[in-house]
């Protein structure tokens, strides 16, 4: 998709927090081209209103909220502001399958690799400037950690390293968007691979690892078969860990979600690789 978009007139490359983009593009019509590691993406903007967020790394594509979450997970973005003429902007909307008003829900791209839909921005979401928009949808945190390095807030200009060849971000995003899911983390004994949602990643990882240790200790003694999941119900909600591909998944949910629903999500995830 990116290569089919008009080039536009480059106003220059820069590095700034994601919030800078929304606060400095009130009169801007064009595209913000974002580069993170070996991946690239863009934000299509019409006078401060983000029309579409998109990011691609290898075969993985993020669109809408998941791309926005991903951009916002980086303290600093490296990007190029490219101004569009009216004709170029109209053409860009066509390429992105967006109606001319620029406020229609974009269609899913054809080759996303999985038959799963990720929630895309709604017209009402895009009616406002980005800061309001992020408040309105209760924007969640997405953190992707590299093998050896955690993101450092203090790093001013270096885009954060990511590992993209692990769990599918789209599936994780989709689970995060299910009713009752507060946070979701994919982790292993060494690290947090992905974390999305309204929770601090480090404390959640610590709890998830403790639960995993308990599960690993008790499973052979209980002789009830292979481990499927461990769910702790506390007054605030549920904490769940379960095997997920080569890693484990940790879910934090509200009390409104019942055990039957959790089992269905986990069963579908473990059997089909996607939630119901």
């Amino acid at each position, binding site marked *: 998709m990116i290569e089919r978009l008009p080039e536009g007139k480059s106003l220059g490359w820069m590095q700034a927090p994601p919030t800078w983009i929304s606060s400095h593009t009130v009169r801007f019509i064009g595209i913000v081209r974002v580069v993170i590691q070996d991946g690239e993406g863009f934000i299509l903007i019409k006078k401060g209103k983000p029309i579409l967020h998109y990011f691609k790394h290898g075969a993985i594509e993020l669109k809408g909220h998941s791309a926005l979450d991903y951009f916002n997970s980086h303290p600093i973005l490296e990007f190029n502001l490219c101004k569009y003429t009216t004709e170029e902007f109209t053409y860009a909307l066509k390429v992105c399958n967006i109606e001319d008003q620029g406020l229609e829900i974009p269609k899913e791209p054809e080759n996303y690799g999985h038959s799963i839909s990720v929630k895309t921005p709604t017209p009402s979401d895009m009616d406002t400037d980005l800061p309001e928009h992020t408040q309105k949808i209760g924007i969640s945190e997405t953190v992707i950690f590299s093998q050896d390095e955690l993101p450092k807030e203090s790093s001013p200009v270096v885009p954060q390293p990511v590992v993209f060849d692990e769990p599918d971000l789209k599936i994780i995003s989709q689970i995060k968007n299910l009713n009752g899911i507060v946070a979701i983390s994919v982790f292993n004994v060494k690290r947090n691979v992905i974390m999305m949602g309204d929770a601090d990643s480090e404390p959640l990882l610590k709890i998830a690892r403790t*639960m995993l240790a308990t599960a690993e200790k*008790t499973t052979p003694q209980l002789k009830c078969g292979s481990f499927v999941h461990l769910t702790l119900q506390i007054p605030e909600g549920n904490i769940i860990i379960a095997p997920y591909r080569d890693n484990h998944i940790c879910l934090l949910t509200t009390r409104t979600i019942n055990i039957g629903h959790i089992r269905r999500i986990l069963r579908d995830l473990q059997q089909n690789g996607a939630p119901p």
Partner: protein
Amino acid sequence: MRDTDEYYTSMKQEMPMLKKILNKFLILHEVRGVIVVRENGEIIENIKSGIEFDDNFMNAVSTLMQDSKAIADNFSNAPISMVFMEFSEYFLLLGPLTEKFFLLIIAQNTANIGQITYEIKKNTEEIVSLL
């Protein structure tokens, strides 16, 4: 026939009250075992059908209870409402009765969890009164 009825009637009368309550869980579809257990894994009362609880099993239950309480304490300083551990063949439902006593249900995966949790809510008070 009358003899048999009398036999079961006398068995019911002789069955300790706590066991009678636990039997309400055991008669639920695919429930295999019901145990009132102390935090250290000591069995207070149990009733089972087609399953055995050896020392390893009870040690694991004790570990599960203690670890779960510690995790809940660390997470939000909150009490555990329920621990649910599922395996490929069975699942374990562990609900606190008092500070030191828990009710453990072991059932096959096809059992109705909603029905079991409903029975737990309905009978907890009575079980606690007998401890």
